[in-house]
C-alpha cells in the first residue's frame, strides 16, 4: 500500500488531557480514516476504509456545541480571574499577592482566550459520509473549517472515481427523494 497523508487534521479535546485525533490517508481507490485516541499521546487507533466509488454523498451538519464549549471555557476563565482578585485581597504580603495574581490570572486569561477563540473561529459541525448501507460519522471532523476543507479534497477524488452529477442529475435525486417520502 502506498498511502499519502492528507495535509488535513482534525483534533478534538474531549477533556483537558484526553485527545482524539483524526488523519486521512489516501490510496488510489479509497481513503483510510485513522482516528487516534489517548492521553496526550495517542495509544488507540481505529481504522476505517471507505472506497470512493461507494460514497453516495457527504453531509455537513452544523451544531451548537461550540457555543457550549465557548461559554464553559469563558466561565472557567472568569472564575479563575475572580479567584485571583479575591485571593489577592486576602493576602497581606505584597510579593505573594503579585504571585497569586500572576499565576491564577494567567490560568484564567488562557481559559478566557480559548473560550473566545472557540466562539469566534471554531464553529462545530458533524461530518457524515453516506454509503448505500450506512451514514458514517467521522467524529473528529467536527469544526466547520476542517470539515469543509476535507469535503473539498475528498470530492475531487470521489468525482474522479465516479464522475460528476450535473444539474439534471441533481434534480432527479431530489425528485426520487421526494417521491420516496
Amino acid at each position: 500500500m502506498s498511502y499519502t497523508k492528507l495535509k488535513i487534521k482534525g483534533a478534538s479535546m474531549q477533556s483537558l488531557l484526553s485527545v482524539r485525533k483524526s488523519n486521512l490517508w489516501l490510496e488510489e481507490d479509497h481513503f483510510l480514516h485513522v482516528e487516534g485516541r489517548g492521553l496526550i499521546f495517542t495509544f488507540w487507533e481505529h481504522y476505517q476504509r471507505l472506497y470512493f466509488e461507494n460514497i453516495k454523498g457527504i453531509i455537513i451538519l452544523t451544531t451548537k456545541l461550540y457555543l457550549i464549549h465557548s461559554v464553559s471555557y469563558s466561565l472557567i476563565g472568569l472564575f479563575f480571574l475572580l479567584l485571583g482578585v479575591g485571593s489577592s485581597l486576602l493576602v497581606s504580603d505584597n510579593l505573594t499577592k503579585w504571585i497569586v495574581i500572576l499565576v491564577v490570572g494567567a490560568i484564567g486569561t488562557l481559559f478566557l482566550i480559548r473560550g473566545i477563540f472557540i466562539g469566534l473561529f471554531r464553529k462545530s459541525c458533524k461530518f457524515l459520509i453516506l454509503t448505500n448501507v450506512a451514514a458514517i460519522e467521522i467524529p473528529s471532523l467536527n469544526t466547520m473549517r476542517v470539515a469543509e476543507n476535507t469535503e473539498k479534497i475528498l470530492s475531487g477524488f470521489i468525482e474522479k472515481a465516479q464522475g460528476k452529477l450535473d444539474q439534471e442529475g441533481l434534480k432527479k435525486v431530489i425528485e426520487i427523494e421526494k417521491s420516496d417520502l
Partner: protein
Amino acid sequence: MGELLKCRKCGVLLKGGSILDGSYEACPSCQASSRLKVYPAYFDKIEKGKLGQKALGDKEATCYFHPDRKAVAICDECGKFVCELCAIPDPLANDGASEGVLCPECYSRKLESSGRRGGREEVFLYDGMAVSLAVVPLIPPICIIMYWAIIFTAPAALFLSIAYWGKTRHFMPRSKIRNIVAIVFSLLQVLFLIGIVVLIVTSLTFGEMGS
C-alpha cells in the same frame, strides 16, 4: 432512499436546495443548517439478499445454518450444504472454470488468511501507551496531585517499551522514537525512585546507629 432530504437532527423534510447549489440550508423546525453533496453512486442499487426456499420434507437436503431452508450449494472449502442466503460467491476464486461458493464461516476464514482487510480495524499502540505512561505523570498539575503514581507508571512504561519493542502493528512504518522517549523518561523515574528508597534506608540506618 428517501432519507437524504430529512434533517439529520430532527427529521423534518428539507427543500433540497443545498443539493443543487451547494449552499447551507436551514431546517425549518430546528434551524440546524446542513449541506449535502451527492455523487453518482446515489443511483447504484444494492440487491437484496434472497432468503432461500423452505425445505418441503425430511428427504430434502437442508442448509447447515438454516435447517428449515433448502440446500442449493455445497461449500467448496468444508463441504457443508448451504441455502441461497448462505451461499457466498468466493471472492478469491479466479480459475474461470467455476464461480466458487463458500459458507459464511469459510468465507471469513479465507478472507482473513488471504491477508485482505475488512472495512474496519482497531489497533492498540504499545509505544503510544508507554510514552503516555512515562510522560503524562510529569506534567505539572498531574505531578503535583498524583506524584505517587510514578511508582506504578514508570515500571509499566519501561516494561511496555522493552517487551513490545517494534511490536506495534501499524499500517505505516513507524519510528521507534516513542519507545526511546518512554525508556529514557521511565528509566530516569525508576532511578529517582531507587534513589529515594536508598536515601530513606541509609538515613534510617545511620539514624539508628547515631541514636
